[in-house]
């Protein structure tokens, strides 16, 4: 293992030398972010190689208005909110699901299938599944919706917060003052969409895209592969997560997503409105859409807290540059979602020690 690490480090050093300036590589996957911090990878990298944690944590990119909608639904006596664990601490305008969970209708589930089962078990409540996540969780949500339709489970619906990774990457690179030299591309998402999906980023913006797995060695080798491209002045799509990621991805999963969902414009925290970047249920499944069932407004909430999660998500600032970081905003008293989620950048900086994260 050490030999592979040294090899990657030599590639990184060579790229830093060749570029003659600091290099910024963005990871767009929360699991990569956590693995990087948990395995203490940052301190082993050359000082001039900087890792930016991008919009890869599903909780962090979820817009405030979505959270407020979920909290609103949690107040309906006839609703049971079924949510992934990560979501329950995200603060909305009136508390969080965790504070509501102690008294009312919130249940943590591990999958959309568990949420559907809840609906079957508790027929006198409408189970609203908090459907967040990227292309990794969207197929499972689609399967649950199709199953609900086939079996006539009418007390089940979803509040879709599903998002697509590539439109966000495109948006980041379209910003004039972005500082991204390359992307370490998400392993789980790539299993579904295939590494070929990143070709448009390489072709449109000339930025290397390398897919890697989550073991520390995979991440280090992925960074090495990116640096090799940078040193050679190349930009191409590459996958070193060869065991599970193919060029075309999982076409069955893509087909299921396509049957249930269509791409729609949607709000991202920090990135604003992005064209065709979210997944909305198709009309034929509209009765399973909580937005249409409960007439939820989709106006983005104004954030007056001073929280700078949005800039953190775009790689424009590091968490300590936010005035709230470690002061009013800690994992126990989180103001923004990047401090709440276990995969959030601010939480990782707080948890694993700010000096060691640099």
């Amino acid at each position: 293992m050490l030999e592979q690490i040294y090899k990657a480090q030599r590639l990184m050093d060579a790229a830093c030398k060749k570029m003659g300036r600091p290099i910024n590589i963005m990871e767009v996957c929360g699991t990569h972010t956590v693995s990087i911090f948990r395995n203490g990878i940052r301190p082993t990298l050359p000082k001039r190689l900087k890792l930016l944690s991008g919009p890869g944590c599903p909780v962090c990119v979820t817009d405030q208005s979505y959270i407020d909608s979920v909290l609103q639904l949690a107040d309906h006596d006839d609703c049971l909110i079924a949510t992934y664990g990560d979501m329950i601490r995200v603060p909305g305008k009136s508390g969080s699901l965790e504070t509501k969970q102690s008294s009312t209708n919130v249940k943590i589930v591990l999958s959309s299938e568990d949420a559907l089962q809840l609906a079957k078990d508790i027929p006198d409540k409408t189970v609203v599944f908090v459907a967040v996540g990227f292309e990794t969780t969207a197929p499972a949500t689609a399967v649950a919706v199709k199953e609900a339709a086939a079996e006539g489970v009418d007390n089940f619906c979803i509040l879709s917060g599903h998002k697509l990774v590539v439109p966000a990457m495109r948006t980041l690179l379209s910003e004039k003052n972005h500082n991204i030299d390359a992307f370490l591309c998400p392993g789980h998402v790539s299993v579904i969409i295939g590494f070929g999906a990143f070709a448009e980023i390489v072709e449109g913006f000339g930025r290397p895209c390398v897919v890697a797995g989550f073991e520390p060695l995979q991440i280090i080798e992925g960074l090495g592969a990116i640096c090799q491209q940078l040193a050679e002045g190349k930009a191409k799509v590459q996958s070193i997560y060869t065991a599970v990621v193919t060029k075309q991805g999982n076409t069955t999963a893509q087909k299921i997503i396509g049957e249930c969902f269509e791409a729609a414009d949607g709000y991202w925290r920090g990135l604003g409105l992005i064209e065709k970047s979210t997944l909305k249920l198709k009309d034929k499944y509209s009765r399973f859409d909580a937005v249409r069932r409960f007439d939820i407004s989709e106006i983005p909430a104004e954030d007056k807290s001073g929280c700078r999660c949005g800039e953190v998500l775009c790689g424009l600032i590091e968490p300590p540059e936010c005035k709230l970081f470690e002061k009013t905003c800690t994992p126990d008293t989180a103001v923004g979602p990047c401090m709440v989620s276990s995969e959030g950048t601010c939480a990782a900086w707080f948890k694993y020690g700010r000096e060691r994260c640099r």
Partner: protein
Amino acid sequence: MTKERRDRILLAHGGGGRLTDELIRHHILPRLNNDTLAELADSAKLNLDSKLVCFTTDSYVVKPLFFNGGDIGKLAVCGTINDLAVAGSEPAALSLSLIIEEGFEFELLEKILAGISEAARANGVDIVTGDIKTVEAGAADKIFINTAGIGTRLDDADLGLNRIAVGDKIIINGTIGDHGMTIISQREGIKFQSQLKSDCAGLAGLTCELLRNTEGVKFMRDPTRGGLAATLNEISRGSGLSVEIREADIPINPTVQAAADMLGFDILNIANEGKFVAIVSRESVDDCLNICRKHPLGKEASTIGEIVETVDAPVVELVTKIGGKRIVQMPYGRELPRIC
């Protein structure tokens, strides 16, 4: 959120992390304070008739009631025995208090009582007093158990955070996270749950043997809720010294690690019910490991790190397998499964 947190108890208040700490320091201690309680030790030390007696209590609300490797009854006996054991005492007697929901099946109660009796016998302790309450359906979740225990402190045991010094070694008697991941996996219906087994066991036999045969043990604690991360942070904060552990030396069952990875949990935060962490002098570490490894509950005992100087503030640091370093924080109190 902060306001609502004052109005209501959250689940995390019982999770062994910072919110539990807040609850104890801000709500419990001011009302019930006495010198013995204020130490917040695993056992209270009471000097009765010139003998030092250790006294502890714990409540058990585990779900599911029956899990691979144990049940709520076995847990209620072993957990309290372990609190006595890590305080350097030999358990002498336990109390048992049951709070049972109306409608709870006798068959299940019998199974739990069997677990209690078996664990007590295996650890050579009698349950000498007890109580039963029933509550109406919905007022409790099936059954809650409280046990209290007393033990006599071994003459050779002089344990305390104040004895810990730079250079001391940290040992653990085996793999971490087994209990917590067994419970979580069974609760969440994860497929490979049958391969996981709780480490639930009474440790007094092993700890007494250790204390009787070596002089270098300075402090012990059982890393239950909050896992190894919480225990090491308590040791660091209590001693004012820093802790450095090595990831590669921490014994972990690969299936347990896989389950934790799948749910996005940090294995260091996961509960154990048959483990103790001991801080021992550098000179005695080999003897301690030898004694542990000869005992059925210490076969995989390992030195996982050492006590180091504090630079700015006391911290727990982990040297990762790739040679990086990171801070190990006090966990929040409730691990949440991640999204993908």
